[in-house]
């Protein structure tokens, strides 16, 4: 609240303004040095691509998570050379740096550290090359995931990792978080598809990791870099592997009276020795949300919907399809539908893809928790989640990657209610503990970031985390890149509750 008051104050009293602008950088720089620093940033990327006025910074304050942090300045470079020079400057001045793609991350990965500079990649968004012979594409980090996928379709290829935010999220962000998506069940996550990267390190030096050759000598630095949440370096050019488009695709939708029977169907499918391309679940509350905004023709009493997609040769899809249908019918569905034509398949997927957006029809805010459980324990874990929902009186909608046990309980709340944010953070932590107790993981595809760093000791010992920090120190000896993320340090950036502007979802 105090910060907002200052914000409005500064907006109207322009002579306060410059002092206010610089105070963002004060934690790392003296006032005179701050002015000089901004001038040097402008000299590198151009005056119009350095943001430091409070009203310009406000939209860079948050990502898709519940955390917030105002950057000291935002720069929008156009080339590796500019990124390199910006980072060398920040290194010299001791200013921490964080990269930002589209800001869709759900764990606070792109939130700037106090007094930090955020490098936004929205201008570095070119697809540089599609190499059909090597089945690779080379892109700048700001390229949107779906844009790349659509672009390579023309050549008969696809980029397999498809986060639910693929219409908006960037490849650079995907690398930072090792993002997943529905089709990662069959094809693996980002890390299985990145071949090479040009990376700028904290001191501004540039190094190439991996390459077009499928293996490179020495340690697998591109492997460990992927998913390092922006703490090792910033990728400025990325080469990814492409897969040929499948000959046949078939989508199955099973509607079940409750989550338990849908979970039984998941086990039945996997138990038949089938690993579909995607296997997703939507629960009753999410269905209701979707039905609020579009009519999908789901039965009124649908308790859970499963979506299963098969891809491959015509023969495989037909043969396995018969088994999938049988497995669905074994588990007591009220309805099973199939679709082969692209437009029909899209209709079946509409509920899944539109679910998160539709949650806005139920509550002003949601907190999406990303946890993983062994897929055979889905039933019990979801029961525990339901119990948490009841205990905290928080509605929880589940839309998730059932095939690989990757849960996404969405805790619905209203940020304007006093104490609501604190309560859902507590309830979210309980959900994650349930996953860990079932033998699962703290995060399947969203990253640790700010959100879960204090929970890391649930899965890793001090020694485990020490080894990880030592690897980070090898890339970034001064820990200037995205500091304060991943590892517990007792700090948190959770902001005080505030009145969200209309349309602002956290």
């Amino acid at each position, binding site marked *: 609240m105090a910060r907002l008051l200052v914000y409005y104050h500064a907006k109207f009293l322009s002579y306060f303004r410059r002092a206010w602008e610089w105070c963002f950088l004060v934690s790392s720089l003296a006032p005179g040095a701050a002015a000089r620093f901004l001038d040097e940033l402008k000299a590198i990327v151009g005056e119009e691509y350095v943001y430091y006025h409070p009203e310009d910074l406000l939209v860079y304050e948050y990502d898709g998570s519940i955390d917030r942090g105002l950057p000291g300045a935002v720069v929008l470079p156009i080339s590796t050379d500019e990124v390199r020079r910006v980072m060398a400057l920040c290194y010299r001045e001791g200013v921490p740096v964080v990269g930002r793609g589209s800001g869709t991350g759900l764990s606070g990965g792109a939130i700037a550290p106090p007094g930090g500079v955020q490098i936004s990649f929205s201008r570095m968004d070119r697809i540089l090359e599609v190499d059909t012979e090597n089945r690779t594409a080379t892109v700048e980090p700001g390229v949107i995931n779906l844009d790349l996928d659509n672009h390579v379709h023309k050549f008969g290829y696809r980029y397999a990792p498809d986060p639910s935010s693929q219409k908006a999220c960037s490849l650079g962000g995907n690398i930072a978080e090792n993002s997943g998506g529905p089709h990662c069940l069959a094809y693996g*996550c980002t890390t299985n598809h990145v071949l090479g990267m040009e990376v700028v390190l904290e001191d501004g030096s540039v190094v190439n990791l991996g390459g077009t*050759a499928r293996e490179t*000598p*020495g*340690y697998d630095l591109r492997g460990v870099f992927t998913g390092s949440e922006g703490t090792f370096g910033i990728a400025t050019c990325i080469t990814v592997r492409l897969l040929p488009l499948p000959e046949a695709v078939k989508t199955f939708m099973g509607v079940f009276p409750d989550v338990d029977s849908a979970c039984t169907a998941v086990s039945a499918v*996997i138990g038949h020795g089938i690993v579909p391309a995607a296997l997703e679940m939507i629960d009753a509350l999410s269905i209701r949300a979707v039905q609020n905004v579009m009519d999908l023709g789901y039965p009124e009493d649908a308790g859970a919907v499963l979506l299963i997609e098969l891809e491959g040769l015509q023969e495989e899809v037909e043969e396995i399809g018969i088994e999938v249908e049988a497995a669905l019918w074994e588990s007591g569905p009220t309805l099973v539908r199939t679709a082969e034509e692209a437009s029909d398949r899209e209709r079946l997927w509409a509920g899944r893809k539109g679910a998160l957006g539709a949650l806005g029809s139920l509550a002003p805010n949601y907190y999406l928790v990303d946890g993983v459980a062994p897929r*055979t324990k889905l039933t019990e874990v979801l029961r525990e989640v339901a119990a948490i929902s009841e205990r905290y009186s928080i509605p929880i909608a589940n839309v998730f990657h059932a095939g690989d046990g990757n849960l996404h309980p969405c805790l619905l709340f209203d940020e304007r209610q006093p104490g609501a944010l604190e309560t859902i953070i507590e309830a979210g932590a309980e959900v994650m503990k349930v996953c860990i107790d079932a033998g699962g993981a703290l995060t399947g595809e969203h990253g640790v970031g700010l959100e879960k760093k204090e929970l890391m000791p649930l899965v890793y010992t001090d020694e485990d985390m020490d080894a990880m920090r030592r690897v980070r120190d*090898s890339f970034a000896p001064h820990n200037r890149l995205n500091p304060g993320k991943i590892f517990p340090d007792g700090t948190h950036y959770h902001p005080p509750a505030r009145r969200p502007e209309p349309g602002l979802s956290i």
Partner: protein
Amino acid sequence: MSRLGLSPPATLARSLGSDGVVPEERLGNFSIDGVVPRLAFCPTYRHEIVETVGWAAAEGLAVVPRGGGTQMELGNVPARYDVALDLSRFNGVLDYQPADLTATVEAGITLHELQRHLASGGKTLPLEAPLSSNATIGGILSTGASGPMRAAYGLPRDWLIGISVVGGSGTETKSGGKVVKNVTGYDLGKLYTGSMGTLGIIVEATFKLNPLPQRLQALTAGFPSIALAVEAANSLSGQVYAPQGIQVVDGASWLGLPADLSDVVSEKDEPVPGQAVLVAFVSGRVRAVERRLSEGADFLRMNEASSVRKLDEAGGRKLLGWVTDLGWERDSGHWLVLKLAVPPSMTSQALSVLPRALEGLPEPGTVADPGFGLVRLMWQQGSLDTTVDGHASVIVGAVGRARALARSLGGYVVVERAPLTVKRLTDVWGGEPAGAEIMRRIKENLDPAGILNPGRFSGGI
């Protein structure tokens, strides 16, 4: 007292027992490039591994882990080598959840034994590695070994979901877990995979699995030259019905097929040296396998293949094993093996200019994986006259030229196997890789005493 006055602490010795400490007269079996360790242990329990490394760290003794010993020739000559740690007895299956498609094993289990165990629950780890009856999971991960279906199913790094290692200070740490999707903390499993045990000794690994394919079969097709076979492989791999693995083997190596296989795959029109054979492996559902085989065969016939044969399951599996092992068999006499890796599209160009680079050396045996950009070149012992002075520098010269060629194509050459005279004259990894400075810092930070397999890895690590 053991060799050179070195003996393990009493508690460790007691735990290892008499059969856990290798007698001095058998230490020669553990030599690497002629360097014999001062001690060798065969631990059965995890704490013995932890204690050994802790003790070695305190004493500054160099420890070299070892699984089935199938790839001990890989790497530079050890800088120091005090203690051999043979993990082949540390070989249990700790957890197997067929319904979750995951398995956790101790590092010393062989790939063959693991697959046998997994098959009982209808699952498989879709990886091949040379000499799988002896090659252990720890060794396969450490060396990043792979097989003919790597282009379709990936590498060990792609299937590993959790790992535990004993680091250079003797502390066991883990990364990842037991679920198939996990981004909690850094993915150190990627770092340990292919690190030759220089960052930590792998003790436990968890993998995601695949359902056992209903069928695995193979196709073979003769071609007038390696170049034509590679060209056919490239166009076949672009078809929708492409096999999951395509290898090209030179005619001379093909003649080395064991009798039980050559009966199955060749008749009168068998290829002769100078010619080549395309070998394709197909796995999956029965109907899909049949289509890949029949359309693949038709395609090859229309693309200059002289003879095309379909192998049944038994023949296909046997051939898969043979191709995977080619160049690695201990008694094959393969004495110089080079691995050339380039971007896949550069494979045929590399093969066409290699002979000029390798001038002065006899014609090598060749196995190429065009879809992956991998070529293995193999020379038999005796094919080069090693009594001639300077034979090593002839080889090193040829390797240098091959490296320059590979670099110009965006790749590199690793000397996987070579006589000591050659290894002493060249870095088998081909010098400093990109990011060498970061790699050195990682090594210093995870193995501060520098005791884990020193000297054998890339970049002098």
